[in-house]
């Protein structure tokens, strides 16, 4: 593999690309990390309602200094605000919105995605680590569309898009679309299909960094 620095999309550009696929009027849940950035890039003219599973629909930006409330937080336990028209609710209602398929789109991170749409994003299976799952399994089982934002390979250069996940699964066959630093890839009945390449990236370059066969658009 040839090493090319700065090839492909940045983290913000990945978030910006993912934001283009969020339609007007959508109810959206964003995971922690790069997915949180998606909210900044939803095109003007679209109104999107953000759900945070700890119990708020209509989540706004971070509070201005002096306006923080430790009892107004998001699922990442960061202090947030509520937009005019927001609502608060308890956890069983919040997860009814998720499990009952009322939330339209969830964008989250991944450790591994398999070509059949299996997702692993909560545990490496290391017996010495403390297992923690939060709401990830509920989100992928219940939200209508699950999109993933992730670097194409791990920090060590291993593919994260592979034929079969080796880490414990979060959900089976749940992922619809993946935004990486190199490409936009759909999960199809025939496997991963590259639907868009980052500027300066060609299909072979992406294929070399993927753990299974890709389908060209």
């Amino acid at each position, binding site marked *: 593999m040839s090493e090319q620095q700065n090839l492909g999309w940045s983290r913000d550009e990945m978030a910006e690309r993912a934001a283009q696929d969020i339609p007007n009027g959508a109810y959206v849940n964003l995971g922690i990390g790069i997915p949180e950035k998606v909210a900044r890039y939803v095109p003007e003219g679209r109104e999107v309602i953000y759900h*945070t*599973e*700890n*119990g*708020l629909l209509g989540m706004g930006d971070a509070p201005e200094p002096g306006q923080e*409330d*430790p*009892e*107004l*937080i*998001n699922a990442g*336990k960061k202090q947030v605000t*509520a937009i005019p028209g927001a609502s*608060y*609710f*308890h*956890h*069983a209602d*919040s*997860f009814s919105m*998720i*499990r009952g398929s009322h939330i339209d789109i969830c964008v989250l991170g991944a450790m591994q995605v398999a070509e059949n749409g*299996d997702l692993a994003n909560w*545990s490496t299976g290391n017996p*010495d680590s*403390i*297992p*923690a*799952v*939060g*709401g*990830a*399994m*509920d989100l992928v*089982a*219940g939200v209508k569309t699950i999109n993933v934002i992730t670097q194409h390979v791990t920090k060590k250069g291993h593919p994260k898009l592979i034929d079969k996940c080796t880490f*414990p*699964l*979060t*959900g*089976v066959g749940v992922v619809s679309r993946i935004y990486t630093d190199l490409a936009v890839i759909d999960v199809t009945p025939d496997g991963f299909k590259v639907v868009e390449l980052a500027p300066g990236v060609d299909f072979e370059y992406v294929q070399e960094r993927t753990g299974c066969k890709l389908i060209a658009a």
Partner: protein
Amino acid sequence: MINKQVNSVHDAVANINDGATVMIGGFGEAGSPIELIHALIDHGAKDLTVVNNNTGSGHVGLAALIENKRVAKMICSFPKSANSFVFPDLYTKGEIDLELVPQGTLAERIRAGGAGVPAFYTATSVGTPLAEGKEVRTIDGRDYVLEYGLTADFSLIKCLKADRYGNLIYNKTARNFAPIMAMAAETTIVQTKEFVEAGEIDPEVVVTPGIFVDQVIVVADPLHESVLVAAGESYP
């Protein structure tokens, strides 16, 4: 006359026995009934099974209850938040049990327990390690795992306003697990910032009807866990 108000946090927790299952409200520090937890530490009940989404931060509140060796088992979804050292340390040493439950399944198990529903099927966790050993049933072509309702002997929760009947409203995202834990426990103990006359809370906006509440204690100026953690405080 019905009046669920009690005089002190210590009176409120006085009947919690060794080996009890205790649901404790809160998602991180939002909604954590920290004064009731500290009173429970003072009270001394041990071998508790505690239900909470997390395992506390620093060395105060729930983390202090665990650090003081009062908890035999945690039932939670995310036991390793930022500033969470106590539980990971004891868990690594094999000194505390963990039942890891997906967050929405945890909420629904509590809701079901409080609603008299003994079990339900959910698609959450199907095909993952957290479904291992659980009954799977195919309904309309999709697989679901059987999960059991969860009840408790006691629940400790925090609210914004309460009246003598135990009608409650909450503050923002501090509501989280409190309304369903109030339903699921034999005895629900509430700390409230304000105590108001019956009728002052509009019946249209009551979140937890008083039937689910047993004891109310006023804590007008509650501590904030993040402030205590930042100051390096520990309890006792």
